[in-house]
């Protein structure tokens, strides 16, 4: 049986449903999720320091999104964003791959862009956002291949903001790459039914701005 605790343990909760939260709104969100054993809280760079402080006595990790949501930072600014996030207390980084380079087939550039951040992150968890909603199945496989080659721990399907993940995206990763990399379903997972569909498809984690709503659909 999938319990509430088990589901919480694979969720990265975020406050993304509130656009540009104030620090007070972020704090109140963090207080609301603190009692649950979530895997991580995903925040944007401005909130990392405060979030790390507030969660310091919990086991919930702080994940910071990099070049989010549209993958539009240049390599140098992306690297500095990652450096600031780690300095401020992020334990995990969710980094968008360079989508434009990927679509143009410039895979070496995709790797060059991400490599320094992978080195910088060291043994902390890193996830590559690859925009599965915008890619064909073959392109999804290629993106995951690059993530494995670069040493990412996870691939994160989408950034949210209307880019929706389907269970098939998760199955593509799990059936093709087995345990070579973990996968996080992100984008459009808002209910316990959505979450179950992703779990059945094999997801290792779920990113959602509806974490408490999802938990309410599972039993203790």
């Amino acid at each position, binding site marked *: 049986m999938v319990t509430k605790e088990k589901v919480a343990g694979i969720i990265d909760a975020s406050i993304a449903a509130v*656009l540009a939260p104030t620090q007070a709104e972020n704090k109140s969100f963090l207080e609301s999720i603190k009692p649950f054993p979530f895997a991580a809280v995903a925040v944007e760079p401005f909130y990392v320091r405060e979030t790390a402080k507030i969660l310091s006595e919990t086991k919930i990790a702080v994940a910071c999104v990099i070049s989010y949501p549209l993958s539009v930072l*240049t390599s140098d600014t992306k690297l500095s964003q990652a450096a600031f996030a780690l300095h401020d207390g992020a334990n995990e980084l969710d980094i968008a791959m360079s989508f434009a380079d990927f679509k143009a087939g410039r895979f070496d550039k995709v790797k060059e862009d991400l490599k320094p951040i992978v080195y910088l992150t060291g043994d902390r968890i890193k996830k590559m956002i690859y925009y599965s909603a915008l890619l064909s199945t073959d392109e999804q496989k290629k993106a995951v291949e690059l993530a494995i080659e670069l040493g990412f721990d996870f691939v994160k399907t989408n950034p949210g903001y209307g880019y929706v993940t389907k269970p098939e995206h998760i199955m593509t990763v799990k059936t093709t790459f087995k345990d070579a990399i973990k996968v996080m379903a992100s984008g459009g997972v808002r209910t316990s039914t959505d979450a179950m569909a992703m779990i059945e498809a094999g997801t290792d984690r779920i990113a959602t701005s509806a974490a408490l709503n999802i938990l309410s659909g599972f039993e203790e």
Partner: protein
Amino acid sequence: MFDLSKVSLSVFLPETSEVEIASACKAAIEKQMYSVSVPPTWVSRVSNHLRGSLVKTTVKISFPLGVDLPEQKFLACLSAIKNGADEIDLVCNMGAAKSEDLLTLKREVVPIVNLCHTNNIKVNAVIEIHLLTIDLLEKTIHFLESVGVDRIATSAGFKGMKQPTISSKDFERIQSFLKSSEKIKLVGFGDTSDDLAVFLKTNVEVVEIDHRKMLQ
């Protein structure tokens, strides 16, 4: 026929192809538009396409909600200028604006205004106006004007955020808050040709339109 010299074409979704970017630049040159607005990744490419024309390369920094650190925004801006930006759309930290945290806004805006003005580059301060109460909107605009930004932009223009469109009433309200009422970059209005016609008749300085809508 519209006077398109006030129009800035925006191109920023990740799924935009390089062919689309090139055609947006070509259209902007042919129709003598004001600028092409792009994210940092495409500055060099767009700047190259526009070289030799009067069309500016406008770069959106900290898109879409501005929730980056001030230091990070400064570095992004520096990099954009190095890569060929002629004008900066600085998305203000909307979390800070919502909580009237003027210190954070000051820390991010003032260094960038100084940097840009030293390089003869204009700074448009982008605020997502529908995230602010009227009172906060007025205070934020007064503050931004006082620290020397060149224009107020009314939205980041990202449809993924599902924000209401900017109405004529919104536009008039912003004008009333500004000392120089024409210093507006209008972003996020209805995007129909009728809407465009209405706004182009006002004294708005720049109107941003999604390139896919404009080229239809």
